[in-house]
């Protein structure tokens, strides 16, 4: 096949990029080489549009062992233990083939984590679908949930939390982001940097097939009418093989045979071999005849670009081949010495005793394009004046029933009961709460994790939205009694080539950076997914934050269900009555304009730290952060979970009851305390200058407001629990 501009463009490269390749190589690349360039230089692998801006994120901290740049981030959780974690997107494949797309997303992120020597101990996921009225939504949701469960359940890793959102902006492009946490000893972390000359390069795991060829390039393009034709670029997962690969790798890692290890994820053998050599400033030589293939007559081009799953590349110490082979034989996995490290700083490929590619590695990595894309700033929208007459005919009870069964608020039990969330025997907080929590096996410690997004806020004002999700993640961890340690982010946006979308990206990242810096909540890993759009319509900007926190004594963990009658309920943090962009404004008043709630980082930090202190002193019986839907949604969920009623009294304030109960002001929590502790608790709050309102007392089995409106908790429960189940059956 003749390599020319046209073919390069078909590979997703720009004309200028192709010209640059020819100039750097001082010749025209052959087909295999063109394929390698297209795989390394696409958006998904090269971060060419995002690199410039990602540099601004805070990535360091006292607890950070490894920041971005490795397979996953690593944080110190003391006593020689560390947590390895990362979130990654698998959006495009999941839209084309929901089961396999979602399944391999989960498989891929788990591989990233165990590549570093960590045993995965928890999975989470953040999934976004189109409108519940859209004809594809149901099937996509079912397929994605089955796929996530199919893979995670088989691996025997509990899925402890997640988030599911519906919004019409995802009608043509759903989001599937998967996160994994793994546990490792600090002195047994494995990295991808190769070292030493003539070290054997080992291929282990599944055989290479023709599936997933150009998967990474597909993930770097927008959808058009012909997306169905892209089905062959979706990888097919085999969780059973991955389970064997996990056990075999951990067995080999217990010894000292491995110099470097890298999983074959996006762009398969190409990016794994090049990354290992590049980090070690070495060359690498691969004999493609030695690569175990599933299909016959595979060409060098196909072998290099396949994204077959469940494969690893390892640089071993000399003389350890037999020992390693024994382990992989025991687990019934392929094992092949396919090459060696060299001092040439080139990647050299051989096939049928002929050299089929030779590229200087620095050209592929350091010289890869980086763009300073044009972007447009989003102005802060003007505040809406909600008129009294808009509220006149509204009844608080009707609104409550409507909002508690809203697809974005309702219980997601139908989803998480399909995920094994208790295997490994350490899940102490199941999905459905503020964060999922797992014990660190055999210790008194526990790790909490949560995933969050607020696409509506980010869409209204990206800078505020970016800050908000970091704060929400922080609050979710605090609400279970965990000290927030670090975050991972999955940045889902439209096309970076459009100024509006690029602007959303730039400003969200700026917001994330500002909040995470202020809260000392650094970003240690992440992933960027651009081109989430069909034709010209992009999704709402959807950065997803995965937060991780540490609970030193798991017996102090807090849950959100109200505990006992007679206890008092306080709202911590000031309620200002901000309704713009709230669920109430959007779904009840049908008002889509206005700014998102403001973020006050000082209050956020101060309120959160004060809550942690109250938890430490054993004053808090249950806690929940105030988020989507405002105070009343939060209180209702706590009643539903605890099966206890509440008498609510609106505190005296200038706000009307809609503003008080449904506004989405930030930095707030709902806490339950014992009556006898009220003086001690309020004195701590006052000493720390934290605003609080006492809003009610737990009593009976109904929710009542100002002694008028009454609704049984059971009724709210059925509204909350049944919506999704009924929708799916």
């Amino acid at each position, binding site marked *: 096949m003749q390599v020319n501009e046209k073919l390069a463009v078909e590979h997703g490269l720009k004309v200028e990029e192709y010209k640059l390749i020819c100039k750097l190589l001082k010749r025209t690349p052959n087909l295999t080489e063109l394929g390698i360039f297209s795989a390394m230089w696409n958006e998904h692998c090269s971060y060419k549009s995002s690199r410039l801006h990602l540099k601004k994120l805070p990535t360091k901290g006292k607890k950070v062992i490894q920041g971005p740049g490795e397979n996953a981030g690593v944080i110190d959780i003391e006593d020689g233990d560390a947590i390895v974690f990362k979130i990654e997107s698998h959006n495009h494949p999941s839209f084309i083939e929901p089961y396999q797309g979602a399944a391999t997303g989960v498989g891929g992120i788990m591989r990233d984590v165990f590549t570093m020597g960590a045993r995965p101990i928890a999975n989470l996921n953040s999934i976004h679908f189109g409108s519940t009225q859209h004809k594809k939504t149901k099937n996509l949701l079912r397929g994605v949930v089955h796929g996530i469960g199919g893979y995670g359940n088989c691996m025997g890793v509990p899925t402890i939390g997640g988030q599911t959102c519906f919004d019409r902006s995802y009608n043509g492009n759903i989001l599937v982001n998967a996160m994994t946490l793994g546990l490792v000893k600090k002195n047994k972390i494995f990295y991808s940097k190769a070292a030493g000359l003539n070290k054997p390069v080992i291929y282990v795991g599944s055989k290479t097939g023709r599936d997933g060829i150009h998967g990474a390039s597909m993930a770097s393009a927008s959808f058009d009418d012909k997306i169905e034709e892209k089905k062959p670029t979706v990888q097919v997962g085999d969780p059973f093989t991955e389970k064997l690969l996990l056990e075999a790798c951990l067995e080999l890692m217990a010894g000292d045979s491995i110099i470097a290890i890298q999983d074959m994820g996006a762009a398969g053998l190409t990016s794994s071999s090049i990354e290992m050599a590049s980090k070690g400033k070495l060359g690498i030589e691969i004999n493609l005849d030695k690569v175990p293939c599933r299909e016959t007559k595979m060409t060098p081009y196909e072998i290099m670009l396949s994204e077959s799953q469940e494969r690893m590349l390892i640089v071993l110490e000399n003389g350890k081949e037999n020992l390693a082979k024994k382990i992989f034989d025991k687990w019934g996995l392929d094992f092949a010495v396919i090459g060696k490290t060299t001092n040439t700083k080139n990647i050299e490929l051989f096939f049928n005793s002929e050299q089929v590619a030779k590229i200087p590695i620095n050209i592929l990595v350091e010289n890869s394009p980086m763009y300073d894309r044009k972007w447009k700033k989003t102005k802060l929208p003007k505040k809406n004046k909600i008129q009294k007459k808009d509220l006149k005919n509204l009844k608080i009870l009707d609104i409550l029933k409507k909002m508690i069964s809203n697809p974005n608020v309702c219980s997601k039990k139908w989803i998480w009961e399909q995920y094994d969330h208790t295997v490994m*025997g350490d899940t102490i907080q199941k999905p459905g709460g503020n964060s999922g929590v797992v014990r660190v096996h055999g210790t008194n410690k526990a790790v909490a994790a949560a995933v969050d997004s607020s696409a509506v806020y980010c869409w209204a004002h990206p800078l505020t939205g970016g800050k908000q999700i970091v704060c929400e993640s922080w609050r979710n961890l605090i609400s279970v009694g965990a000290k927030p340690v670090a975050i991972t982010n999955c940045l889902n946006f439209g096309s970076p080539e459009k100024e509006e979308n690029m602007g959303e990206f730039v400003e969200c990242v700026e917001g994330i950076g500002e909040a995470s810096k202020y809260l000392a909540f650094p970003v240690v890993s992440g992933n960027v997914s651009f081109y989430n759009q069909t034709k010209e319509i992009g999704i709402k900007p959807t950065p997803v934050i995965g937060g991780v926190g540490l609970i030193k004594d798991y017996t102090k963990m807090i849950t959100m269900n109200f505990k006992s009658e007679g206890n008092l309920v306080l709202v911590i943090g000031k309620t200002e009555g901000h309704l713009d962009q709230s669920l109430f404004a959007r779904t009840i008043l049908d008002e889509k304009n206005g700014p998102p709630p403001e973020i006050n980082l000082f209050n956020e930090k101060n309120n959160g730290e004060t809550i942690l202190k109250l938890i430490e002193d054993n004053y808090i019986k249950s806690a929940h952060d105030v988020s989507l839907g405002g105070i009343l949604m939060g209180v209702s969920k706590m009643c539903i979970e605890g099966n206890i009623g509440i008498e609510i009294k609106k505190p005296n304030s200038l706000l009307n009851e809609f503003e008080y109960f449904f506004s989405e002001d930030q930095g707030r929590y709902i806490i339950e305390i014992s009556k006898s502790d009220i003086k001690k608790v309020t004195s701590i709050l006052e000493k720390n200058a934290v605003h609080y309102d006492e809003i009610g007392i737990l009593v009976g089995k109904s929710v009542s407001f100002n002694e008028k409106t009454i609704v049984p908790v059971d009724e709210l429960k059925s509204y909350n629990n049944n919506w999704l189940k009924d929708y799916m059956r």
Partner: protein
Amino acid sequence: MKSSVITFPGSNCDRDMDVALKKFGFKNKMIWHNDNELPKSDLVVLPGGFSYGDYLRCGSVASKSKIMQSVINFAKSGGLVMGICNGFQILVETGLVPGVLLRNKYLEFICKNVFVKIDNKDNPYFKNLEKDIFELHIAHNEGNYFCTEDQLKEIKDNNQVAIYYCNNDGKIEEEFNPNGSIKNIAGILNKEKNVLGMMPHPERMIDSCLSGEDGSLFFKNLLNNIK
């Protein structure tokens, strides 16, 4: 008391079972599926998971693996063999207990707490337990127990039903049946009552801060019964 937990490729509750058995005083050994001989054991456990990926029929490949001949001989000589979840699926594939396990009624994986009622305490697993109703945990895709009418009659005549799905009051009704199992059957014994297969996971209920303690009662009692 000595126990052995078999690890098949794809088993994923083997460690959890090991933790549970040791917690309640068993001396447990992990046995690799490719071994020929079982060590001397008072109890053999086939753990949950996805042996061989469950790509053929759940449990069918595992039932033919090397160690299973030794397990079958052990069971036939009266030794205690307990299969949990995937272990139950393996047991029905060996024919040690009757029936089959189909896909769940709604074709969905189910992970949640359920109540089960012990039907028959005249066996080493449930003898001496004070309670009849236990809260246990299920996590499976193929737990829909099925057998022919003749088999069902035989099972009932021989008191082979171990546990039924029920509510917290012990009512055994269709609405408390999570997966479509015939007659709400959650676990079954062989005729001789030394082999038990059940879908619920007692090893996930051994800690008050996890799901509950009913699994602890089960293991403590089992140990005392074997002593």
